[in-house]
């Protein structure tokens, strides 16, 4: 049987740990993707994601269901992303641990696609990522929430706390900047005009 988020939340509040774990499994990837696309650093996005669930767990008894659980979670994650952007902290370089055999790891992670395909895919992804990094935080957040999380304009407005028309304007301006930036790159130049 598949429980809804709200049912799992209610069970978690009553002390059912499995229910909260189910919520984590259900939402860890969307929250991580949101954090990564907002702050653009893999390791920090993971930390933000972890912290989001930790805070959600601690604040769960106070969750009254005024909003959807996912919106509540998105709000926590976005606040953490904003904090991170404000701090702009630098991540120290981490050395590989001594007990890890690099060659063994390399052998265990054989690619499933050709190197050319992989490179092309990663190139395109990087082009978009670089263009997104040029946007102001508000525009980037609006595009991420709309494009990758499918929120309605109203949901985004509620989440970020601004009028509906502002959300649309931010989206329009962001998409227009992206269009201009992507047109400069030969890989994405073709259909963008």
């Amino acid at each position, binding site marked *: 049987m598949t429980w809804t988020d709200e049912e799992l939340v209610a069970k978690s509040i009553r002390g059912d740990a499995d229910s909260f774990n189910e919520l984590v499994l259900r939402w*860890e990837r969307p929250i991580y993707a949101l954090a990564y696309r907002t702050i653009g650093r893999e390791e920090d996005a*993971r930390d933000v994601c972890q912290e989001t669930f930790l805070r959600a767990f601690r604040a769960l008894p106070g969750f009254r269901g005024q909003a959807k659980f996912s919106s509540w979670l998105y709000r926590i994650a976005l606040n953490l992303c904003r904090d991170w952007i404000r701090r702009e902290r630098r991540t120290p370089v981490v*050395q590989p641990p001594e007990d890890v055999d690099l060659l063994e790891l*390399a052998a265990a*992670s054989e690619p499933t696609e050709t190197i050319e395909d992989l490179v092309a895919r990663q190139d395109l992804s990087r082009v978009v990522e670089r263009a997104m990094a040029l946007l102001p935080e508000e525009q980037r957040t609006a595009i991420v929430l709309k494009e990758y999380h499918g929120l309605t304009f109203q949901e985004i407005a509620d989440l970020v706390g601004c009028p509906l028309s502002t959300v649309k304007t931010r989206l329009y301006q962001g998409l227009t900047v992206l*269009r201009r930036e992507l047109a400069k790159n030969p890989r994405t130049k073709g259909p963008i*005009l």
Partner: protein
Amino acid sequence: MTDMLCGYANRDETIVAFLYDELEPEPRRDFNAHLLTCTVCRDEVVGLRAVRTSLARWEPPALTSLQSPVSETNRSAWWHAVPAWAQVAAALLFLGVSAGIANLDVRYDQNGLNIRTGWMKPAAPKLATAQTNEGGTKLVTDQSTAGAPWRADLAVLEGQLRAELRASQASPQTVRAASSSDAETLRRVRVLLDESEKRQQRELALRIAEVVRDVDTQRRADLRNIDHTLGLVRNDLGVEVMKQRQSLNLLYRASQRQ
């Protein structure tokens, strides 16, 4: 990129709503009709749709599962939810009860500290002694209670703890609130940080391994190319040498005929 020359009302917002299919039916009909005549808006819609197609290519790196805040240990060790003070009190109670069972007798008098245990010793006679104070009222004292005054306190404490434990078991929210004490939170955060760090180190190692593998693959491909090119050069040289020999042979034969 096209310059904006169209004066359609709320143009920017309408285009965005149209792109994401959030335009009401009537405005959508109007805007569709407008697109038939306005090349500026039409080009912009096509261009922004292409942007959306490009955006779909942006993939975040893969995520290995996170450590849930509710770990297995938390679930199996129910006593972690009991407050620290209650655990200490329970430990004291346990020691007290053990001392009682062992018939522990601790005395400190002019002979110094005297500790005796065990039931084999003759217990002091339980005599109710009557004492008369200055006011003439009689105080009746049970000697066993007077010998171990902590027993009454322990009994009270035991009752109190039992009541609190019952209350905490009946109310999960109380348990949860208690579990979020600072010490517990710090411990969890430390565990999470450690795990996060290890995971990051592993991932970095994986990335390095990928780079090493890619460089190795490229190196092998380059070596193959060099080998192949050298082979071609050798072939060309061989053919050239053969031609030279044939020419020399012809010249030699011609010179002998003369």
